[in-house]
């Protein structure tokens, strides 16, 4: 079978490369299934402490492969809800719930679900020449893969609506200026910069980082009061982790910490 996802684990970093370069790494069902298998491994394997997602070739991901969506004008309407429910929604949920940092290294065009997928990652680094394209509205569709949730949160309501309604391109520089992504680097530096960041994160207190991620996610729906309660609970758990002890003792001894990433 074709390997539409390349998966390599090294020094605590699982690198997932979307690999249909001739189709700008656009999603089909098999690619979704292969990605789901890799995520299962990332969830279960404690030695994986950071996830890095990038694309093979000149694109990051062009979203859904429209060759699979060729609509027969005489036939019944396709049920796009089915592919959202079976593939995109579980993917977004699992990346959000993964108690480890997820980095998107956006190496080339990110369109449709490819763009919203990147925005759903914890940290986004983009090559300078990259464009994010919210192409959905031009096909009469809505931004899926978490798009309508992430966009207003990363770009603000006015920009999110403008982007989504116009379906325009957004340059990496503009996305950075708007605070939608973490960093822009020259194209040839992207791979190195992203890998360095991923390896750094993979050596950090993973359990604590996972709690930070879950807390930020919960904050999107919690009241201040509820969030303060959650902070108490998570800090209680974090304070019991071996990495907290290690962090404090390394700080006091003025030596570099050796984090295990474990909860207990």
């Amino acid at each position, binding site marked *: 079978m074709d390997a539409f996802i390349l998966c390599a684990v090294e020094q605590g970093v699982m690198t997932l490369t979307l690999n249909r370069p001739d189709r700008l790494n656009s999603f089909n069902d098999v690619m979704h299934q292969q990605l789901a298998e890799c995520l299962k491994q990332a969830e279960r394997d404690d030695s994986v402490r950071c996830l890095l997602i990038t694309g093979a070739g000149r694109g990051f991901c062009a979203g859904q492969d429209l060759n699979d969506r060729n609509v027969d004008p005489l036939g019944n309407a396709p049920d796009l809800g089915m592919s959202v429910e079976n593939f995109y929604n579980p993917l977004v949920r699992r990346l959000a719930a993964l108690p480890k940092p997820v980095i998107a290294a956006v190496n080339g065009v990110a369109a449709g679900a490819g763009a919203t997928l990147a925005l759903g990652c914890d940290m986004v680094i983009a090559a300078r020449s990259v464009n994010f394209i919210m192409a959905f509205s031009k096909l009469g569709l809505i931004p899926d893969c978490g798009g309508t949730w992430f966009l207003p949160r990363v770009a603000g309501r006015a920009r999110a609506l403008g982007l989504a309604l116009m379906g325009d391109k957004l340059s990496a520089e503009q996305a950075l200026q708007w605070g939608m992504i973490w960093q822009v680097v020259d194209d040839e530096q992207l791979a190195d910069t992203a890998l360095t960041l991923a390896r750094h994160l993979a050596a950090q207190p993973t359990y604590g980082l996972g709690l930070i991620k879950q807390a930020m996610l919960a904050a999107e729906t919690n009241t201040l009061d509820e969030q303060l309660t959650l902070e108490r*609970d*998570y800090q*209680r*758990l974090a304070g019991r982790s071996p990495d907290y002890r290690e962090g404090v003792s390394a700080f006091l001894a003025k030596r570099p910490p050796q984090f295990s990433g474990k*909860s207990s």
Partner: protein
Amino acid sequence: MSELLITQHDRVLLLTLNRPQARNALNNALLLQLAEALEAAAQDADIGACVITGDERFFAAGADLNEMADNDLVATLNDTRPQLWARIDACKKPLIAAVNGYALGAGCELALLCDIVMAGDNARFGLPEITLGIMPGAGGTQRLIRSVGKSLASKMVLSGESIDAQRALQAGLVSDICPPALTVEYAVKLATTVAGRSPLALQAAKQALRQSQEVSLHAGLQLERQLFTLLAATDDRAEGIAAFREKRTPTFKGR
């Protein structure tokens, strides 16, 4: 290793379902142990409240299908299981379920039987009996509808679909949600608070709460007043009110 781990934390009895190989399925032996542990606790003045829990992934994933599969109509008619449930339900002391992970079928029914349910945010509640061609047989159709209302209860019982902790909280099945790693700790903490109250007042209040599910509002109010009046004859009532007025912590003696 026993299938029911029993530990005591001050005045709180913690009962931990421990059949990990069977996802804490509630077979007759385990129900019997639960009933016996609760009956022993009822006689023990040093225990004020009980907490029932499972592990981080399963509270209890149902009844033991192997036990049930071969029971024909006659065997089911004469099953001892309803009596085991009745013995657990007869527990007079406050019962708190600390639910992490799956509480399905009999596991959900056990949680429903408890006075308070605290849940980890990974908890799921469901009555999937219908998917097996049977139906809930230990209170699932009765207690669920009383806590979450007709529509959601019917949806769960008729479809067999489960709900998550958040939905259970909204619906009133659960009183609190917390991270799974803290559920038991927080349940024991609440149980410790409860166990510090007057034992007779707890018993009377629990009885009144239970009766609200049994009788009309009018009869319930009368019973409530009778129980309230009964407490007027206790030493603990005098102590409780005196301590409040003297701004000190009461010392209850269960008399």
